[in-house]
């Protein structure tokens, strides 16, 4: 009986203590990084060149490198001597829940910043503006979306392109069959094997997949820009201090003039592991995002 009371007393004390700690610390993420000396970065397996694996569970890419720079800045800010980065591969389906539940502290992939996701997670300032385009076989003769009538169009499950395609279909009265790949590599395989006539997806992903294919000359990116979307680094919601630290680091990287160099490195020069060239020129929209750093969701880009 007595021991039970004791236990209850400890419990109350512990609860109070934890409450006090919570009240004291504004940023759970920064505290966690400081106390463990480690941070978990969410990365993608095949979002070339944004975030992808170079084999042996190593990850690299445009966003991954930016994130590493951000984390160096945060390490210095917290006064840590070393900061261990754990890479956690995520998918289109699990990236939001994993950031939400704290498994992933910072997601550096190819996630569109939209109002729907912003309900669950936070987004850092945009460093890359994606344009949704159409990839076809070079000998197909397709040059615009209107020529896709009654053709099979591939896109990847769990991405915003599916909805976009549907809207476009309705607005222009163009009727086509959607086929879904379970990931980008799968969608590209649908195009490659002739099961689909076109692959509608973010320009960088199309360029990356084409560059990685057996015969890059067999494919081309054609047609009008279907949509413009900001791709951003994802951080936990309700942790403004961590988000501010990330944004401050981003501002520093941009101010140092690192962005054009990073673009050159990842989009125009040969990249590991196979030394392929993505070959995507810097778009005016992305340049504009660097000049005016912001975290506007995709919805704001539609209105413009």
């Amino acid at each position: 009986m007595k021991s039970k009371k004791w236990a209850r007393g400890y419990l109350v004390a512990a609860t109070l203590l934890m409450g006090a700690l919570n009240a004291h610390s504004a940023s759970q993420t920064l505290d966690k990084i400081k106390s463990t000396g480690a941070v978990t970065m969410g990365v993608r397996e095949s979002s070339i060149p944004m975030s992808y694996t170079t084999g042996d569970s190593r990850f690299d890419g445009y966003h991954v490198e930016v994130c590493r720079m951000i984390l160096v800045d945060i390490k210095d800010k917290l006064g840590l001597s070393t900061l261990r980065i754990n890479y956690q591969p995520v998918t289109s389906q699990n990236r939001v829940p994993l950031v939400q539940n704290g498994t992933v502290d910072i997601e550096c992939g190819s996630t569109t910043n939209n109002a729907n996701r912003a309900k669950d997670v936070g987004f850092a300032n945009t460093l890359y503006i994606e344009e949704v385009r159409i990839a076809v076989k070079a000998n197909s003769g397709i040059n615009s979306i209107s020529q896709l009538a009654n053709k099979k169009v591939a896109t990847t499950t769990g991405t915003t392109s599916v909805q976009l395609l549907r809207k476009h279909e309705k607005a222009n009265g163009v009727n086509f069959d959607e086929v879904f790949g379970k990931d980008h590599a799968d969608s590209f395989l649908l195009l490659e094997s002739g099961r689909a006539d076109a692959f509608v997806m973010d320009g960088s992903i199309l360029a990356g997949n084409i560059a990685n294919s057996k015969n890059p000359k067999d494919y081309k990116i054609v047609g009008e820009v279907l949509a413009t979307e900001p791709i951003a680094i994802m951080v936990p919601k309700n942790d403004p201090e961590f988000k501010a630290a990330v944004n401050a680091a981003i501002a520093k990287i941009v101010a140092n003039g690192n962005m054009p160099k990073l673009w050159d490195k990842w989009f125009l020069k040969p990249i590991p592991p196979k030394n392929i060239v993505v070959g995507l020129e810097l778009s005016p929209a992305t340049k504009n995002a660097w000049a005016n750093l912001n975290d506007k969701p995709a919805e704001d880009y539609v209105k413009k």
Partner: protein
Amino acid sequence: MSLDLGVFCKNTLDGEVVEHCFSALFGLAHNSDPSYLDWLMKAWVWTLSVAGLSLTIALILGLLMGTLRTLPSSSALNKFLIWLSTSWVELFRNIPILVQVFIWYHVIPAFVLPLKALPSYCLVSIALGFFTSARIAEQVRAGIQALPSGQTAAATALGLTTAQSYRYVILPMALRIVIPPLTSESMNVVKNSSVAFAVSVPELTLFAMQAQEETSKGVEIYLAVTLLYALSAFAVNRIMNQIEKRSRVPGFIVSTDASLAH
């Protein structure tokens, strides 16, 4: 955690609430843009079609292969048929179902060109049907071998050929014995049809993955999909139960009479 089931009444283009949420289900009205509920129903039909086609293939081939495995090895032809059916069973039950689906979708059409023209749901039904046929074949074989050997001997004594003794004596009894395992196998086909999402068949699992991404209502979407899978499997269970009851011959091998159970 509160559920927001209103998500099913929203249209799939811009998330506005549609005019006819439920009436469109029964064909009374038509939404100008499909709602998530309409899409869910369409996905359910795909799941049932894939499962139905696979089950048909599996039952026919399973019955055939299971029977062939029990043939008396009296002639060279019989020996070949036994070898063939044994190889069939071992081949299709030793490879994971998802791998088989990929082989039928990506690998085999590269060599057998006419298969390229087949829609993906046909290919996935073949894969699922062959996989399940190996399991059903083993159950049919177990049913046949459970019969006392006197049955075959009696059929032979009556002057029936091998084919006739299977048709009139062995199979009618053996198939009644294997209805219970066949029930669970049929229910498995409904559940295994979820692998079809991997080859872009727009069925329930693919719907769940895409719709939860678009709406951020993962819990509601997955609950609805779970419910429909459970409902479909349970319906199969009830149908098989009816077949079991209707085909029962009183006092014949399997008795469900409580007074006989010891």
